[in-house]
């Protein structure tokens, strides 16, 4: 690699830092997501612990240069354990004025700004709504920061001028120039991205060559010009030994489903309708046809879940993936699945609501809907993932429970962990739990009759595939008699069945792990009780506070329905319970109602995850109150 011809002493010596937050920010069309992901991959391969947070508008290409069109990718890399994408930024890459305007408030004092100067011309300044004649790069308002002016557009053009690339393609290579520059600044090698470019543009060698040229030009520019006196070196993190990969929550969900199907020895069926931010799961699973994965892009959300019910009926591990509005549409069918007692996993990647709400922003506001959002009483298990990689384990568990307990299960993820990524010490096939499936293939009474709703000790009925000789029977959404499954409208029977369906779900508590204190001690003065994606910021906050001598503990729930058996007992051991949620207090209601404890809620409904700082402040405030 001909990166530089300079002697080693002339290269600025990188400063060793524990952790650093970089924000890539530009227009939706500037390729910031891709640039950020490449940077992340390279850092991951180098051995840094990390956490990412893509933050982009729901419009595919909002008007160029506007605040609405700013697309950001945040990555937190460290040589120590990283639990969140970071509260504030150390470095901002601002491709235009709007990007700077959006991200400057969260830049640390003394932080670094790399500004693409062409993105700060009059037109861009006006679009970003700076007052006439004001250019933040020139008016001294950035005096508290280290600002690097780089004409990315010009330099990219210059380095690609003699290639056969057109103006558009040259323009699109800008992100590689800045990536090269950042690799220099963070002391990272280019190889990973060069391999990536070669793979991605394998069929267009001229574009591949152009991108690689721009990448190297960015590195060389930083190295030669000496305008950058700041370089950072983040050493590999001391994570538990093992083999790691970087993974997003949606990707982890997809392969968690494949893994569950393989462990259950069932074909996997996904009925889905595209919806942000869940679509990537459908994208990913659609690639695995050779693993007997069937994906059906249905005509709507209702058909998506109904096709999955059809597939479950015929003996597949059936899944439907969606986000809030889609879950609303699926509720009637979910009631049917509850009534039929068929296994089904509904993946709900939550986003800001109600209605269309904030499609690309995160929220945890579907919890009560997952719990209760069906007509009649239709209880079902609810399981939530706490981090990108935890999506794998949690969705695997969701499948295991669905199949082994013959019930629909709602798996909750959210936009934050679905799109965010982190290193994952992935399991091997042998590390995974088995999933037991017993299809009934002969009559199940002594006198040779079939009772399709005869139950085992967990109140679970048998799974009977159409095509099984001699077991023809009818099931449906009408209230049924237990065991025979025959339609039955008798008053007492309905009450019996309602209780039975509730007990069946409650019984699952015998099969799930007990709740544990994740950080801190049992009987601490305050317990921070959470679920889902608040795990990272809570963990980081509680860990620091414990180190600082505070009497704080963290309990985090994966199983929300049913709750772990010991949860009430565990919670009663704490003086105070604080429940942070990205909603107005939904777990709070469930906990207070069930355990009669005076838990205190902490809500954030801004479409953004909690920062560690917010969490720490609130914990201390609650502790002292």
């Amino acid at each position: 690699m001909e990166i530089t011809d300079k002697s080693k002493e002339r290269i600025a010596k990188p400063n060793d830092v524990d952790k650093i937050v970089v924000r890539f920010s530009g227009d939706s069309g500037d390729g910031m997501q891709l640039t950020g992901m490449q940077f992340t991959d390279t850092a991951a391969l180098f051995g840094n612990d990390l956490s990412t947070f893509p933050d982009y508008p729901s419009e595919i290409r909002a008007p160029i240069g506007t605040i609405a069109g700013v697309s950001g990718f945040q990555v937190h890399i460290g040589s120590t354990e990283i639990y969140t994408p970071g509260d504030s930024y150390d470095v901002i890459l601002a491709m235009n004025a709007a990007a700077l305007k959006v991200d400057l408030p969260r830049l640390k004092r003394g932080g670094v700004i790399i500004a693409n100067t062409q993105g700060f011309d009059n037109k861009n300044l006006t679009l970003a709504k700076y007052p006439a004649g004001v250019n933040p790069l020139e008016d001294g308002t950035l005096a508290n920061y280290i600002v690097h002016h780089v004409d990315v557009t010009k330099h990219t053009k210059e380095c690609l001028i003699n290639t056969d690339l057109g103006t558009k393609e040259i323009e699109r290579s800008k992100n590689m120039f800045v990536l090269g520059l950042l690799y220099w600044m963070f002391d990272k090698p280019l190889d990973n991205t060069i391999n990536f470019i070669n793979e991605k543009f394998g069929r267009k060698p001229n574009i591949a060559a152009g991108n690689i040229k721009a990448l190297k030009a960015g590195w060389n520019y930083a190295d030669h010009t000496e305008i950058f006196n700041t370089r950072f070196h983040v050493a590999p993190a001391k994570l538990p030994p093992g083999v790691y990969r970087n993974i997003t929550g949606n990707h982890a969900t997809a392969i968690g489903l494949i893994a569950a199907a393989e462990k259950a020895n069932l074909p996997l069926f996904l009925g889905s309708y595209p919806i942000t931010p869940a679509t990537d799961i459908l994208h990913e699973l659609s690639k695995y046809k050779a693993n007997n994965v069937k994906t059906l892009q249905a005509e709507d959300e209702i058909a998506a879940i109904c096709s999955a019910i059809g597939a479950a009926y015929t003996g597949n591990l059936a899944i439907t993936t969606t986000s809030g509005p889609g879950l609303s549409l699926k509720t009637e069918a979910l009631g049917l699945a509850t009534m039929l007692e068929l296994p089904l996993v509904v993946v709900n990647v939550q986003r800001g609501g109600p209605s269309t709400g904030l499609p690309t922003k995160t929220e945890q506001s579907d919890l009560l809907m997952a719990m209760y959002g069906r007509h009649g009483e239709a209880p079902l298990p609810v399981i939530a993932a706490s981090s990108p990689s935890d999506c794998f384990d949690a969705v695997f568990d969701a499948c295991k429970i669905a199949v082994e307990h013959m019930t629909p299960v709602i798996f909750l993820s959210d936009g934050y962990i679905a799109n965010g990524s982190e290193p994952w010490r992935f399991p091997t096939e042998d590390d995974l739990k088995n999933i037991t499936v017993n299809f009934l293939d002969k009559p199940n009474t002594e006198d040779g009759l079939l009772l399709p709703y005869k139950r085992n000790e967990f109140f679970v009925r048998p799974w009977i595939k159409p095509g099984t000789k001699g077991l023809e029977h009818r099931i449906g959404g009408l209230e049924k008699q237990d065991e025979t499954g025959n339609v039955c409208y008798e008053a007492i029977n309905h009450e019996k069945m309602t209780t039975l369906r509730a007990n069946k779900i409650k019984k699952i508590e015998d099969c799930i792990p007990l709740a544990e204190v994740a950080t801190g001690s049992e009987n601490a003065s305050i317990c921070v009780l959470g679920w889902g994606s608040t795990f990272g910021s809570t963990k980081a906050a509680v860990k620091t506070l414990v180190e600082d001598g505070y009497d704080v503990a963290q309990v985090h729930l994966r199983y929300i329905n049913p709750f772990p058996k010991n949860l009430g007992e565990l919670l009663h051991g704490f003086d105070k319970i604080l429940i942070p949620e990205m909603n107005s207090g939904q777990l709070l209601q469930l906990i207070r109602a069930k355990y009669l404890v005076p838990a205190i809620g902490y809500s954030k409904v801004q479409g953004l995850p909690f920062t560690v700082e917010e969490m720490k402040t609130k914990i201390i405030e609650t502790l002292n109150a």
Partner: protein
Amino acid sequence: METITLNKNVTLGPKDFASNMDVKWCPGCGDYSILKQVQTIFPDLGVPKEDFVFVSGIGCSSRFTYYMDTYGLHSIHGRAAAIASGVKASNPNLSVWVISGDGDALSIGGNHFIHLMRKNFDVNYLVFNNQIYSLTKGQYSPTSEKGKVTKTSPFGSIDEPFNPTELALGAKASFVSRTLDRDPNHMQSILKRAHQHKGTSFVEVYQNCPVFNDGAFFPFSDKETKKDEAIFLEHGKPLVFGQNGEKGIHLNGLTPEIVDLNNVCTNDLWVHDENDKTKANLIARFFDTCSNDVHFPRPFGVIYKEDRAVYEYMMEQQIEQLTTQKGKTSLNKILSGDKTWTIA
């Protein structure tokens, strides 16, 4: 194994397809006839009993599922087609029969109706059309005629009705047919054809509701009117109808005309071609009074049929092809992905 061999030789009769549930339709309901015709033809279809699956939605029609001693799923309103698509996609070997009504299929389930046909899953889709909502006790349906007085339209409905066969053709159905409850032989022949067809077979069954819409289709079955009001299509045969077969339909360019066979030779008549979509579109429109205020007879039989690739077979084919080409990826490979690093 022995029992299976023995059972193979046992021939089933219609009664073997009747479940032990009491049939609870109103006396005189057209659904009885449909149930009977289905049970009559099933033993001869060459399908093992356990491979039949009925999927129904909500409505009087949809109770059908409970009365067949086969596998059956009585689902929710309008969604039978969507559920059937999942059944078929995951097990193409099953013989899947969707039972629906005019409200279930064409109103609340309209979206699934069209997409099932577009995708061409190999299912038989029977719509019992009685032009009324019966289970909810008498409201106009999407096939009720304009001006119909019902509980929800006391001054007459202002809704334009669907013509289901035209809708099915528009949705690219590969088999479109119509039959009626009062003609058992015709229904049996159509049901058999529907079963034989690979792809979505749409069968509209005119079904009398004696309680809320009695006699809606009697003109097509009553002796006095039937021959003038109905025309029974047969592939390769000219379109002839009338009390004494004295009327025919002639195609003048793309305009159908009723002609008197005393003046026009049968050789000049429109000859029914099931595989001709243009003609099928014209014939499906023998529904309302057609162009030039001419009153056409209502067509019964197979209006259209085409051989088109079936969704679930294509799905399986793609899987087979990719499995041969790429081979199955091991779970460990999927878990590790392409880029890993090791921390010692």
